């Protein structure tokens, strides 16, 4: 009997389950995608339904530079993690800082764009449906970038204090999933707002 049981046990493959951080973050990303989806649907549905100006074509300009900055920050965080896995802490800190800086440039650019729209074009969230959907969708994304920047800043502080080591790469990787997600959402938002919506 015990032999049979032992046989059954040895027949079991090794018991390895996925890392809970990765699964948790992946699930959170699905939830966030659903939230963004609703805002995107609202944006698409209300295109051209504003009953007063200004229209997107009149006031929107493509934020090419900011978009390049944000998207390239996905690359820098990817290489930052690669460096961390190889225990190159200096390289990691530099690339991690670059990610933070690129994200910060994006947020500043968004801020300037909003300032331009509000003070020079007179478009606020209550002006018309375009303003409503534009500020809420872009703002939702900007809010997620800000949360990401806080996370990046925290990681940067830890790195500068010398607390980050190769063993933390799994956790940093979980965070990087979030950052990649924020970048991917920007591709969708950019397409919807600046290409389809214009």
């Amino acid at each position, binding site marked *: 009997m015990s032999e049979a*049981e032992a046989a059954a046990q040895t027949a079991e493959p090794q018991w390895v389950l996925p890392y*809970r951080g990765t*699964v948790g973050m992946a699930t959170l990303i699905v*939830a966030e995608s659903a939230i963004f989806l*609703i805002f995107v649907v609202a944006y698409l549905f*209300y295109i051209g339904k504003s*009953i007063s100006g200004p229209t997107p074509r009149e006031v929107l300009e493509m934020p090419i530079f900011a978009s390049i900055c944000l998207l390239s920050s996905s690359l820098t965080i990817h290489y930052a993690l690669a460096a961390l896995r190889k225990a190159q802490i200096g390289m990691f800190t530099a690339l991690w800082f670059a990610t933070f800086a690129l994200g910060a440039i994006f947020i500043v650019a968004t801020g300037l764009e909003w300032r331009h729209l509000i003070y020079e074009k007179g478009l606020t969230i209550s002006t018309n449906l375009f303003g409503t959907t534009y500020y809420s969708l872009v703002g939702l994304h900007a809010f997620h970038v800000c949360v990401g920047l806080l996370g990046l800043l925290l990681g940067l502080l830890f790195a500068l204090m010398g607390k980050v080591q190769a063993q933390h790469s799994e956790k940093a990787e979980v965070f990087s999933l979030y950052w990649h997600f924020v970048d991917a959402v920007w591709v969708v938002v950019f397409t919807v707002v600046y290409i389809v919506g214009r």
Partner: protein
Amino acid sequence: MATDSIALGAAARERRSITELLHEWVVTVDHKKIGLMYIFYALFFLIVAGLEATVIRIQLIVPNNHFVSPQVFNRMMTMHGTTMIFFVAMPLLFGMGNYLVPIMIGARDMAFPRLNAWSFWVMAFGGLLLYFSFLGGSGLYGAGSAPDVGWFAYAPLTSLPFSPGHSTDFWTLGILVSGFGSIGTAVNFIATIVCMRCKGMTMGRMPLLAWLMLVTAALVILAVSPLTAAQAMLMLDRYVGSHFFDTQAGGSAVVWMHFFWIFGHPEVYVLIMPCFGFISEIIPVFSRKPIFGYPVMVGASVCIAFVSLSVWAHHMFTVGMDSYANSFFTISTLIVGIPTGIKIFNWLATMWGGKLIFKAPMLFSIAFLFQFLIAGLTGVMLAAAPFDWQLGNSYFVVAHFHYVIVGGILFSVFGAFYYWYPKVTGRMYNEWLARLHFVLFVIGFHLTFDFMHIPGLLGMPRRIYTYEAGRGWETWNLIVTIGVLFQALGILAFVANLAWSWFKGRPAGNDPWDAWTLEWSTVSPPPAYNFAEVPAVHSRRPLWDLKHPEDPDWKYE
């Protein structure tokens, strides 16, 4: 093992001051304590929302009644619906899942214990926000008032001109905040079930309750998130003057309906899935047979979840959609009946030829089977668009969904309470009181909700404040309200049983039902670490294997 439990029991009963106890519960990250807090919280709101329903029914007991004012009636019906869904059903099921899932899959806690505590407290404060509206609803405008926009709060009723003051803001905020908690809990459930299973607990060997909580969590992720987005839009509309649902600026009231029901319909399945899990655990144990068609049960659950994501607009047939939308949502809704039917037949097949033991959990489960079937049948009727045009927004609809929620969900929750009560408290409930509860509740439930269909068929609209005599509605409404009395007495027997047995019930031992899943292998109540030694399993019924080493299940699976 026995000496262990005595030692642990003695330690647990050491005298401690109230502040120490309070501190321990407030800062706890133990999934069992958090689960119990969810359950107590939900039971409290069950009583509150039950009293609100009682006010509604007293108002409707006779024609031209003026027990409460129309304004109060609207508040009662809004608060009853909102509370029952968001602050009774959800926390009750999350609480039971929280308590049971880690133990059933052989884990020592959830994947993220602190996130778990955060989710509970966020949800709890969401409920407090909602109820604070009674005091602060109108802010500086005058006396306080609760939200009165109905539980699905259609636009433009929720816009500032029609809902001045803060009552609707409290409604939005309460749901938004508790939604964050729900999403956190769902993330936690998925990570726990995917990553924390004990050795040998493959997905194919998980107890069905764990499977169904996984499906529930996935649905919460996909359904509650859209609601969160919609509530954020409503807040923007009310606070900063955006125009999402403002028809005067080109916005659309129908968009709110879509967004709300994209949440609202899967929510029904969020609530019923864990109940399928309870039933799937109780029926095999009380039939002394393993569950019939385990893989099909899992497949049917996943299938229901998928289909439920594309049926939402059957709540909107009466709003007026084109014939393609009507056909699509009719057909997709009818399709839900197929996997649900498979599940019902599997439960029946589990009972077929078994040695049935008619204890309280089994009684509630059998009542569930009958009542859920009837609820499903009226659901099929309402799914047909032409039938719905006739009866949409009538008392027939109210009767239908209360049949699902009370006859299906609440009955199975009662069954689950009695089934796991000895595990959670270490003491047996009182079987006589439990049967009294069952009988009273069956009578009360059927008096109220069977007879509620009829005034609906006769044209009585839902949410009506009062009605004239001579329409043929009087007798039915009288019977419906009398049923409430029986239900209230049943709840009284239930609460009395829980409280009395907590102190005076006879010790239950670790495995009073001779059951097969892992939670019965540890002591009752389980210690903070759940298992002294993390178990390893080889089949779907690990305790059967332990009790019958000569004929273990893993030989056949």
